[in-house]
């Protein structure tokens, strides 16, 4: 009996709910609402977003994907009026084009106590051919004010069953309710994954059909907060609640199944089999002459690797396009000396193999592209090369598309969790991209106090690994004047002369300059107050926010050392010196040290700052914040010099 009641109740509820999430049912109360009940600062809110994706069998016997989306959006504040401009992009290149239909677009306002409805007419719809392959439909809602509600729906018809659109649950504004249904034909196998921290409910059932049976999946979520930007996050969309569908296979009833991506092995094989990927590794005639002249049998594998890497790096120029597939093809790219990442790095893999090395491509997703969440061809947008030398267990990673990389230093944008090493037989191995070794930077300053009012000295910074990569990216090939200007911008409070930047193969990079600092020393009364780290002190906590939602991510693990010697005037001596400080976060993710002393009229200060983990939990935020607070406090202390008696 109890059960029956609850069932009945449920039924009623469902009817109630489905009414609530239909377009065209805007109430005066909704229009009267001044702020979002859960987030009073929200500019607007998605009151609901519902939709479904179904499949239709066309007359030609192929599937067509139909996605319908219904939006109801409330605008609370003037700054949220931009929400009344909406757009839908669609693909128009390729063999079949996508089509977009926007309908049911209305603006609702409260006039007196009545709900006023304004239709969006064709005059407020615009179509734009943004590029050769993509078009955009844009709509601008009429009569929109603070408090308005807008509603619209759109339908996308697409012939691309392998290009299932992502379903987004979370936006910058709060979302009150989301419901999404997919009707997947039995013969199509998709993999799905949901990213983010929000709770998404999933329901599944079989729906018989005329042409084919389908499985219906229903995804629902309520009260998803607006997503806010935070510092020290590689790519915030990694944490956004999004549902992704990836075509895994088509299981035909009458012929053998076609696999797309079920496992990493499948992914690897499909990618490898693509003529713009694996096929490109087979060509050799285009480079044989030049490569043959570069290497010989007496060379070690390491030598061969270095020579070929540098040859491709120097010879090829990256056209700023990222892809796992070749654009021009290796032959044409080699001839034109220009190519995308695949053109350049697959060419490198081919040459390395030709020289007898154990080289393979590694596909990966850059930071901007997000973290690949499940085996899928579309998750990757970048390819590099990997070499294993003399049976060593370690792969050496190579990216010849940048002029600033060296073996095992790949661009920062590619340091994004893990990539997949693709072996010729279609096997694949996960490979961590984050560096295991610390990048080291050492700054040495030798200086003296001049006229009690300024500090003059020489600065030297040596850097290796990623510190060097960044230094090269910033300082390579600059004129002395421009280098000096850049350094002045970086260090702000000093004057700089004789600036030089050195980079030599196999050696750390070096920045040298002479400086004058008026800010590192102050006269108060008859005493001198010297900032122990001169112009290098951390004067502001990088973590200012009071709360933190996402993990804290650093670019790479690193060690930074500062050694500073300052000659003090003969007629002065040290009155006080800041106490030494040793700090370590709870999990030893970050270490800090500071110490100093005086000997024979020389101040000697040394400090170090090491990051040993590239990611910290959001829960560690408070600890991290107070850790940096201590550093800022320490480096704000002064060495006090008094006149000798």
């Amino acid at each position, binding site marked *: 009996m109890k059960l029956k009641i609850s069932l009945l109740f449920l039924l009623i509820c469902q009817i109630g709910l489905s009414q609530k999430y239909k377009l065209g049912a805007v109430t005066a109360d909704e229009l009267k609402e001044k702020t979002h009940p859960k987030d009073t600062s929200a500019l607007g809110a998605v009151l609901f977003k519902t939709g479904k994706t179904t499949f239709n069998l066309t007359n030609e016997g192929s599937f067509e994907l139909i996605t319908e989306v219904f939006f109801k959006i409330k605008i609370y504040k003037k700054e949220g009026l931009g929400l009344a401009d909406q757009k839908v992009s669609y693909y128009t290149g390729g063999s079949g084009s996508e089509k977009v239909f926007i309908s049911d677009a209305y603006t609702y306002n409260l006039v007196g106590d009545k709900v006023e409805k304004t239709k969006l007419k064709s005059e407020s719809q*615009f179509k734009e051919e943004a590029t050769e392959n993509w078009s*955009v439909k844009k709509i601008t809602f009429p009569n929109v004010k603070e408090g308005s509600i807008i509603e619209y729906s759109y339908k996308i018809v697409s012939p691309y069953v392998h290009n299932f659109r992502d379903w987004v649950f979370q936006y910058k504004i709060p979302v009150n309710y989301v419901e999404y249904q997919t009707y997947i034909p039995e013969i199509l196998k998709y993999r799905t994954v949901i990213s983010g921290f929000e709770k998404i409910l999933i329901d599944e059932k079989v729906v018989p059909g005329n042409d084919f049976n389908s499985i219906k999946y229903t995804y629902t979520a309520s009260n998803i907060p607006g997503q806010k930007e935070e510092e020290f996050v590689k790519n915030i969309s990694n944490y956004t609640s999004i549902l992704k569908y990836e075509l895994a296979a088509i299981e035909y009833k009458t012929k053998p199944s076609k696999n797309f991506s079920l496992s990493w092995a499948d992914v690897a094989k499909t990618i490898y089999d693509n003529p713009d990927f694996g096929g490109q590794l087979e060509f050799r005639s285009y480079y044989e002459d030049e490569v043959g002249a570069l290497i010989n049998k007496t060379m070690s594998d390491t030598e061969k690797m270095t020579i070929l890497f540098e040859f491709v790096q120097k010879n090829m120029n990256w056209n700023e396009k990222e892809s796992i597939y070749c654009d021009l093809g290796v032959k044409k790219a080699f001839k034109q000396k220009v190519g995308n990442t695949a053109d350049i790095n697959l060419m490198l893999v081919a040459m390395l193999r030709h020289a007898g090395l154990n080289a393979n491509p590694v596909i990966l997703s850059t930071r901007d592209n997000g973290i690949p969440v499940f085996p899928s061809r579309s998750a990757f947008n970048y390819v590099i090369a990997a070499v294993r030398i003399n049976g060593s267990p370690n792969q050496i990673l190579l990216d010849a598309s940048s002029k600033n990389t060296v073996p095992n230093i790949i661009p920062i944008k590619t340091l994004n969790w893990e990539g997949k090493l693709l072996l010729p037989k279609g096997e694949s191995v996960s490979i961590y991209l984050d560096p295991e070794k610390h990048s080291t930077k050492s700054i040495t300053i030798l200086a003296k106090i001049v006229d009690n009012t300024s500090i003059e000295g020489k600065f030297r910074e040596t850097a290796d690994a990623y510190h060097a990569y960044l230094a090269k990216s910033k300082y390579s090939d600059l004129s002395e004047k421009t280098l000096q200007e850049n350094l002045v911008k970086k260090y702000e409070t000093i004057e700089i002369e004789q600036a030089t930047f050195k980079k030599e193969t196999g050696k750390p990079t070096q920045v040298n300059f002479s400086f004058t600092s008026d800010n590192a020393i102050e006269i108060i009364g008859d005493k001198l107050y010297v900032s122990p780290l001169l112009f290098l002190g951390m004067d502001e*906590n990088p973590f200012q926010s009071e709360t933190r939602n996402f993990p804290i991510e650093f670019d790479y693990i690193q060690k930074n050392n500062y050694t500073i010697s300052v000659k003090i005037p003969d007629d002065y001596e040290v009155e006080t010196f800041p106490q030494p400080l040793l700090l370590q976060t709870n999990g030893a993710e970050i270490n800090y040290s500071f110490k100093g002393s005086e000997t024979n009229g020389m101040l000697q200060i040394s400090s170090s700052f090491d990051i040993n983990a590239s990611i910290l939990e959001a829960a560690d935020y408070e600890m991290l914040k107070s850790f940096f607070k201590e550093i800022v406090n320490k480096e*704000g202390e002064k060495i006090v010099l008094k006149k000798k008696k």
Partner: protein
Amino acid sequence: MFFKKNIYICSLISKTQPMKSVFTAILLQISFVIFAQDSFIATYPDSLTENANAIVKTERILVEIPTEKSMRITKYRVITVYNELGLRNLETVEYFDKSRTVKSIEGTIYNASGKEIKRIRRKDFTEQAVSQGSIATDVRVLFLEYTPVSYPFTMIYESEISSSTTAFLPTWMPVDSYFLSVIHSSITVQYGENVRFKYKEIPFNYNLDKKEEKGKISFTFQNFKALRSEEMAAKMTTFLPSVLFGLDAFQYEGVLGIAESWNLYGKWIYDKLLKETEEIPVETINTIAQLIGTETDPMKKAKIIYEYMQSKTRYVSIQLGIGGWKPMLAKDVDRLGYGDCKALTNYTRSLLKVFNIPSYYSLVYSGSEKRDITEDFVSMQGTHAILGIPNNQKITWLECTSQTMPFGFQGDFTDDRKVLIISENESKIVKTASYLNEQNLQKTHSKVVLNPDNSMSCEVKIVSSGIVYDEKLALKTKKPEDVKDYYNAFFSTINNKKFTKTDFKDASSQFEFTENIQFNAEDFVKKVQDKIILPLNSVNQVAFVPKKNKDRKIPFQIDRGYCMEDESIISLPSNLQAEALPEIQKFESEFGTYVASVSEVNGSLIYKRKLVIKSGFYEAQKFESYRKFRDQIARAENSKIVVITKP
């Protein structure tokens, strides 16, 4: 410390990108003969390569205007690029639309030793819709994405444009970039007998070679050594050459127009673009009449109407066809509740007109960098529209694209510059309101309490007016967490702040913004051997000092000037006192004035400071004295005293 806002980007004329470089077929052949042997080898004297990311070796632009209804622009440009930064000087881009066609566009690349390495055809250019946040536009663009294989390289770029619109002739600016040397740049304009052609050289310090004959004029500019960009640089047009070209009678998208005088030109705009757009629906008139009630003062009525418009509409960017210059119908704005700058300005004008308040639709170059409509050169100028209401002898200006700007406040987007006011019979150039020096006042009053545990508590009240008011308005639209970030950065000299209050109030009728902030900060000072070092101005330290530049070349500019008046009452724990008080600091220069003093009253320290920075345009050689002045100020701002235990 000032933040910049970025609102109402409204471009009337995205098509008027400065055009550079042209040629006829005949001239082209000649040039090939001349340059055939050695011309594309990238060797230049050091004087030209120094500071240069690129060198324009030859640039020739030919503008042919046989009648006022058609125009052909041919460009020929040889440029050597030395590094990645120089790629932006390639200028391989052309815009087009219904009345403007790209007839041809192509190029050739040569390596450093002058060997041809690549031919670039039209199909190598990418075509795209021009869409910068706009809802709609029908302007498209062709541009080249070229990946160099080595530096330096030389590119020949050639293009031919034909246009039935002659309202926008290219502006010639042979040097339009820093780090760019120019060996030879020329422009020739050939015009038919009945074409009423005119030009204007913008005053400058370089010698332009000018040749003029019947139906033809050319300018040549040669051997210019690249300039480095410099801090606080004045606008390029104040020290680099440019020439404006135009027609007294022109065609704009099929409509004939007149630009003989501002009055005639304004009448043309009024008659062709504004007159037929004014109709306002009766319901709206009735609604406004109710709002106005018995009010009779025209400016108070105008305020009610402006605020009605602000609450009813929002700004979107639409540029379709003649929509580039013609506003949407007022009744459409009324019905749809949106429009671009022209539409919203014209809608407001039409509303005011219904209630017998005259106002001027006005064209302006918008942006925080001030730019005048060139008064003695009548042509289609301006990038934005605002509304002026005559108010006794003055004009009250309204920004109609903002939902939040108070009635009659202009802000730094359109202030202090010459604009064209348009009316049926008396269109003319007038200057908008200015905000200068002491008018831009930020008054800060703070109470700083130093606690025995070396922490501090602070109460700050800031009252802002003038352009500072404009900058503070942005606070109103920030989210709470962004407001905290703003104040964290604003009080950056104090670490470990915890805010307990961040309130602000906009007294929009007085254009005055008041902030009330309270916070505490741990470890505000450090005790060293019973002594405390206490900063005197921790709340609002002005630390800006320009960088030293021994051979400054470019004049510099302080756009608006400002004034900061601060009073800070610092209370010490009862057992502490200042060891000694510093003397008054006072200095003055042509750039402004500075006074700071501290006194002791009833055991509290009272710090007072007034800083005035004056607006002005200064020659390069004065830069060092300005730098020294700011350095002096920064040092004074950083003053500290020693606090000791009372004996």
